[in-house]
Each structure stands twice: as structure tokens, then as C-alpha cells.
């Protein structure tokens, strides 16, 4: 009599089930593989130091191997898109800047470009305003990539890199504070131009930064690039090839690390990027190591762009001339600590009734945007940041949708992590550089 008569087995949805009748434990044990059959489900996050905010990963593990991974997002959903429908077009910039909080100036610029396209005033945006936008975006790209290298290194065990990365990022934030008044959430790039002109101190500080940063980059590379642990943790980890990237809609450094030089600044230029001299770094391996190299190289390219933008700055207006759209710019801090333009106040209160009316209409009502819809995509640090804006002809957005690279790219995490080790989930996830504020909006 065969042993199976004692313990009949059948397959169910939960796995193999044995009907044990007694005295057949050897059969039961031989029918299961104690190492491979034991799958445990681990819930990682939403509160976990390596998930870049509140990302929850549900992992099904077999030993240390990840068999299935599902990401759960939405913990940071703040309804920004819905809220914008209840504010006027200018107020929108103060909302979108809070989406991807590591790249606020990209959110603002994409929004401003979309509103300008709806208004049909792209041609009227002044040279200086566009150059300032490029300057700010590239500085922002540097600060965003610095946070990436800092946090990713920390998650893989290099705490020192964390401190250095944030130290240099702080320098960029100081520049932002000098120019916009705020370290983050600037609402600086507005439809029609930018809110304020760049002060001279800021230019000096940017030039200092341009001298300082290449040295620091060399330091980072000395620290990480030849480091055996760093190499072990990044090379051939979280691999996603170009085909996978395209199918899953992954753009940005992750796509470029797989060998495709797709960068909207080159391929579908905006803000005059076609007139700047810079390269699109790529790598062929499509792994975390490649993404690290691509991002470091992108910081160098951004430095080049910042330098060219600073050299190009010529005095001039930073807002469109159309007074029905342009917010009264050139504010100065008054005694009450609020931004005010004394000249403008003197004009509207003392000299020009029409200016007062325009000012009143603009501030209380906002400008009207002709009906229609547009889509504008720009190259954010994480990939294609797209704005789909719909107007009904009123003073408020009818609908604004953000195609957030963090949101789209996160779909690639199971493809990167399944079949690998659990430790590589951290490396793979970090290499996507998700920012949950942007992902969940």
C-alpha cells in the first residue's frame, strides 16, 4: 500500500491540504518544502523610513526572496486638483507647488506654461522671465537629485552621504530663499512670468555655488563610486530595461539609465532649452548603479545650464506687459512685514483710476482664460511632468490634472523587485525616487 493512502493531498486556493489520518507524519513532511513553501506576507509602511514618505508595500516573501509586491498609495492624497477648481488661476501656483515638494519649481513652471498656452500668451513671456525659470528649474533639479543621492545612500547604509547631500541642498535652498522668499512651496513662477526679479546677491551666491558644487560632486564620487558595499548594493539591482520602462510609462533618469536618451528638454523643448548647451547622460545597464551615475551626471549638466542662464540674464521685465494678467510685481517688504509695492500703491491710489480698477479686478476676481484644453509636459527630476488643464472661460481652472512622474514610475516597482531579495526592494524603490506628495497629490 502506498503511503499516500494515509494522507491524501489536494490542491486548494490556499495551497496544498493534507488530510491526515495519523501515523503518517513522514509523508506529510516530505510533501512540503519547509524552506520554499513558507510564504509570509510583510506589510512595509506606510510609516517606514525608507519609503520616502507614506508609501505602503505589501510583500509576499519566501525566505528573503520577494515573490509578490504590491504598492499601496494614497496616504498623502490632499485633493489639490479638486481644490484648485475653487481658486482663481493665479492661486493655482500656490497649490501645485505643494505637490512634489522636492521639485516645487517644476510643478509651478509646468502649470504656468499650461495656463499661458491656454491664454495664448507664450510669445509674450519675457526673455528674462524664461531665463529665470530655466535657472530656477535647474537649481531645483540639483537640489532634488541631491536629496535623492542623500536618502538613497542612507537607506543603503551610507549615513555620511546623507549629511553631505542635505548640506549642499541647503545651499540651494538658501538661494531659493534669497530669490523667492521661501525655501520650499515658493509660488514663484506665476502665469505670465515670475513673481519677483532675481536680486543681485542671489546671482553672487549662485556663482559661488557653481564654484563649490563640482568639488563636492567629486567628493561624493570618491566616497561612493568605488565603494565595494555601494557597488554590491546597486549593480545589477532593480534592473528595468528600456522596453519595460516604456510599457510602464517610466520616464526620467530611470529610462535614461536603461539607455534611451529621452529628455523632453532635448526632444520636445520648452522655455528655450534648445538654445542651451548641455548633454543628456545615459547608461546602459538599467540598474540602480546606472541611475546613480545618470543622476550625478545630470547634476553636472544642470550646473552647466545654470551657468549659461546666469550669463544670459539681461535686465528687463519679468512679467508680461498685459496689465490684465500681470500681477503687480516688484514687491518690497513693508513695515508690516508684508510684501508691498509702494510705487504701485501710490499709482493706484493717487494717479490712475483705471489702474485701481484693474488691480481690484485682478486681485479679487482674477483673469479669465479662454475655454479649451491643453497638455504641457516638462522634464522634471523624476521624469515627464505633465499638466492637463481645462478652462471653461472663467476665472478658475475647470480641471487641472497632473501627470506625476512619481505616480506613474511607482508602477514599475513590482517589475523591479519581484524575484529579488527584500533588501533590494529598498534600493529599487529608492532608485525610482518617488515623492509621495507628488504621487498622491
Amino acid at each position, binding site marked *: 500500500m502506498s503511503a499516500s493512502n494515509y494522507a491524501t493531498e489536494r490542491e486548494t486556493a490556499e495551497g496544498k491540504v493534507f488530510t491526515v489520518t495519523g501515523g503518517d507524519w513522514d509523508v506529510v513532511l516530505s510533501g512540503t518544502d519547509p524552506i520554499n513553501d513558507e510564504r509570509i506576507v510583510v506589510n512595509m509602511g506606510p510609516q517606514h523610513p525608507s519609503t520616502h514618505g507614506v508609501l505602503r508595500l505589501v510583500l509576499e516573501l519566501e525566505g528573503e526572496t520577494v515573490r509578490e509586491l504590491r504598492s499601496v498609495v494614497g496616504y498623502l492624497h490632499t485633493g489639490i486638483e479638486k481644490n484648485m477648481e*475653487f481658486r482663481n488661476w493665479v492661486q493655482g501656483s500656490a497649490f501645485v507647488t505643494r505637490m512634489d515638494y522636492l521639485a516645487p519649481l517644476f510643478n509651478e513652471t509646468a502649470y504656468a506654461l499650461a495656463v499661458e498656452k491656454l491664454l495664448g500668451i507664450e510669445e509674450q513671456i519675457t526673455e528674462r522671465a524664461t531665463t529665470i525659470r530655466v535657472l530656477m528649474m535647474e537649481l531645483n533639479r540639483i537640489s532634488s537629485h541631491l536629496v535623492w543621492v542623500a536618502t538613497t545612500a542612507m537607506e543603503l547604509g551610507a549615513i555620511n552621504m546623507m549629511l553631505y547631500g542635505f548640506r549642499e541642498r541647503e545651499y540651494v535652498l538658501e538661494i531659493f530663499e534669497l530669490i523667492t522668499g521661501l525655501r520650499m512651496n515658493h509660488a514663484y513662477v506665476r502665469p505670465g512670468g515670475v513673481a519677483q526679479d532675481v536680486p543681485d546677491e542671489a546671482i553672487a551666491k549662485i556663482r559661488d555655488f557653481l564654484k563649490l558644487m563640482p568639488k563636492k560632486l567629486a567628493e561624493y564620487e570618491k566616497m561612493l563610486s568605488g565603494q565595494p558595499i555601494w557597488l554590491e548594493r546597486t549593480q545589477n539591482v532593480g534592473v528595468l530595461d528600456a522596453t519595460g520602462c516604456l*510599457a510602464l510609462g517610466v520616464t526620467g533618469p530611470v529610462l535614461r539609465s536603461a539607455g534611451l536618451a529621452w529628455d523632453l528638454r532635448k526632444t520636445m523643448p520648452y522655455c528655450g532649452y534648445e538654445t542651451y548647451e548641455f548633454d543628456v547622460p545615459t547608461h546602459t545597464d538599467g540598474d540602480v548603479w546606472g541611475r546613480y551615475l545618470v543622476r550625478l551626471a545630470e547634476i553636472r549638466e544642470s550646473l552647466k545650464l545654470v551657468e549659461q542662464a546666469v550669463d544670459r540674464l539681461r535686465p528687463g521685465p519679468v512679467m508680461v506687459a498685459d496689465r490684465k494678467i500681470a500681477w503687480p510685481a516688484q514687491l518690497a517688504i513693508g513695515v508690516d512685514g508684508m510684501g508691498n509695492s509702494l510705487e504701485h500703491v501710490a499709482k493706484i491710489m493717487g494717479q490712475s483710476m483705471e489702474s485701481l480698477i484693474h488691480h481690484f479686478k485682478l486681485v479679487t476676481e482674477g483673469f479669465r482664460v*479662454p*475655454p479649451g484644453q491643453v*497638455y504641457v509636459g516638462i522634464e522634471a527630476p523624476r521624469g515627464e511632468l505633465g499638466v492637463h488643464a481645462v478652462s471653461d*472661460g472663467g476665472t478658475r481652472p475647470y*480641471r487641472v490634472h497632473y*501627470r506625476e512622474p512619481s505616480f506613474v514610475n511607482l*508602477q514599475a516597482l513590482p517589475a523591479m523587485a519581484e524575484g529579488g531579495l527584500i533588501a533590494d526592494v529598498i534600493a529599487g524603490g529608492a532608485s525610482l525616487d518617488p515623492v509621495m506628495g507628488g504621487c498622491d497629490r
Partner: protein
Amino acid sequence: MSAPQDRTDDGGVPVPVTPAGATGGAPAELPPSSPAGRGMFGDQGTGDVSGYGGLVRPQRSIEAATRPYGGYFDEVTDALEEAYPAFGEAIEKVVVDRGELTLHIRPERIAEVCQVMRDDLSLRFELLSSVSGVDYLGADARRLHVVYQLTSMTYRRQVRLETAVSAEDPHLPSVTSVYPTADWQEREAYDMFGVIFDGHPGLTRILMPDDWEGHPQRKDYPLGGVPVEYKGAEIPPPDRRRSYQ
């Protein structure tokens, strides 16, 4: 300022006009201007004595484009017409506005059109950049629109596909089998607008909690919020404030 509870639906203001494009047949060209293009202050209860309450703003309508569309738009439409036999039936309208091409597609055809757009050698829209929903409440009987942004990396072109379904029968085929990246984006459109993508591998809520009721970005879903007191005055929530439209 009146308390928000006091408002009535008609404060002696003229009846809403039908906004341009509210035909119910073809997809809406335009979203309805806020409360049907009427009034200026968005206020429905208090007496607006300024005289602006009766203003009706003319809407610029966006017409279907006629050939030549200009730029690469003709090439794209020609190539699609050639590669896709059901072109005449599936394409409801072609719109060119602000230098962008929009093809309005019958909802049941969207996955087929995407397949052709991706695979045909003269089209090659490899990347689905974005999927988003728009609710044209009051302007279109098929009020829920789904907008697909396609990008051709080979030819460096962009095309927008737009479909419309009604709130009563919000079904259309999922494009996840053509573009896997649509997975989360369709889930978002389902979550926010209640559009049901048939054939999606797991159409569940993504941003809102699983047990949430309603679809928050529909136009008839209130923004919510509570009044707050500031320096003795009560400030109503944003969607209840008296404001310009």
C-alpha cells in the same frame, strides 16, 4: 455676507442659458461656464444690486477642424485612417486647438484605436503619457470624458484621444493591455470620476480609501470643508464663499 445655509436656488437671477456645445450628441466642445454662464459673483442668495447678475458671457466655441489641419496632424490622421478600417465610424470629431490635435473617439473603440496608434509603423505612439478624467456636467449628456495623451518618441509627436461616457453607463474598454502604464491612471480616473474600465486587471480605488463613497472629482461632488473663525468673523469653506466666477 449671508450664511451659506440661507441661499436659495434662484435669487431673482435669470434662468441658466444652455452653454455652447450642450448638444448631447457630439462630445462637448466646452465645459459649462460656471453656473451656466450666469452672473458674475457666483452668489445665488443675496441680492446682487450691482447689475452684473444678468450678464451672460458669449462663449467662444471650439469647432471641429477642417483639413488641412496643419503640421503633422494631417499625417497622423491619414496614417490612422489607412491603418484602421473603422476610422470613419470610430472617430467622432477632429479638433485642432492651440496647436494640439484631439481625436474624439467612440468609447467602445478606444482600445482598438490605441492598439493601432501604438503598433502602426507610421504612427508609433509608444508612450501613453497621461490618462485623465474631466466631468462636463451640464454641457454634455455623456458628461464623463477620459483624455489620453499619446507621445510618439520616434516621430516626436503628441496626440490627444478623448472619449465620453454617460454617468449612467460609464463603461469603456481598458487600454491596459496596450499600454500597461494605464493601470494606475485608469484606477485614478475610476476613483475620482467613477468611469469603469472594462478589462482592467484590478479596478479598485487608488487615492481615496477603499470604503469611500462617491467620486470626489465629479462636479456635483462638494468640495467640503468647515467654516473657520478668524478674528471673530466666520469664514465659510471655499466652495461656499461669495466670489467671482
